[in-house]
């Protein structure tokens, strides 16, 4: 089974802090994604990456950046955390199996105070 591991389940950070959310997958997948989930808004794509050192903006990239130095690791960075970035953050890896779609991590519930 593919595993996508997010390093923290819960985080509390202060406004203005730089925040790193880490995600690791163990199946050598090329495509990785960061989403945030908010009530009533569903899952919104922040950034994605097709390969090492490659990144593409999703629908809501403002206030975020990403890093993909190794194939298995995809990091989301909040440059200066704000209260409107309080959310559930979900990392996903794309399987090669047709029709299957993503495998998600367990999520990181980030609260910015």
């Amino acid at each position, binding site marked *: 089974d593919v595993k*996508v591991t*997010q390093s923290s*389940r819960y985080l509390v950070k202060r406004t203005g802090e730089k925040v790193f959310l880490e995600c690791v997958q163990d199946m050598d997948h090329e*495509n990785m*994604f960061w*989403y945030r*989930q908010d009530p*009533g*808004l*569903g*899952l919104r*794509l922040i950034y*994605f990456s*097709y390969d090492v050192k490659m990144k593409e903006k*999703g629908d809501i990239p403002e206030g975020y950046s990403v890093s993909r130095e190794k194939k298995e690791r995809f990091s989301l960075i909040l440059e200066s955390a704000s209260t409107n970035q309080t959310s559930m953050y*979900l990392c*996903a890896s*794309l399987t090669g199996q*047709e*029709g*299957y*779609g*993503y*495998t*998600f*991590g*367990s*999520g990181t*519930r980030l609260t910015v105070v």
Partner: protein
Amino acid sequence: DQQVKQNSPSLSVQEGRISILNCDYTNSMFDYFLWYKKYPAEGPTFLISISSIKDKNEDGRFTVFLNKSAKHLSLHIVPSQPGDSAVYFCAAREEGDDKIIFGKGTRLHILP
């Protein structure tokens, strides 16, 4: 502009009855449609998918129906069980694109 729409934010169904979750889409280039299930404080998990060349796919208690002319799909759960209480996301992929577009989700409550 929402390409994948789930117009019912929530749905309550009696245990043992059929749950029907609906989804509409606007992009005729979508070639795969997927349903994910999400419990609180967990990541979504894949449930079932259907290719655009089919109109039905079944997996145990779960069946997905696709009506391409109406740009509509539905997920049927029969019989509904307490563990089915969760948020269900409808999603779609365009041919050749690795990004998946999600709807806003429908919260399903199974009543005892």
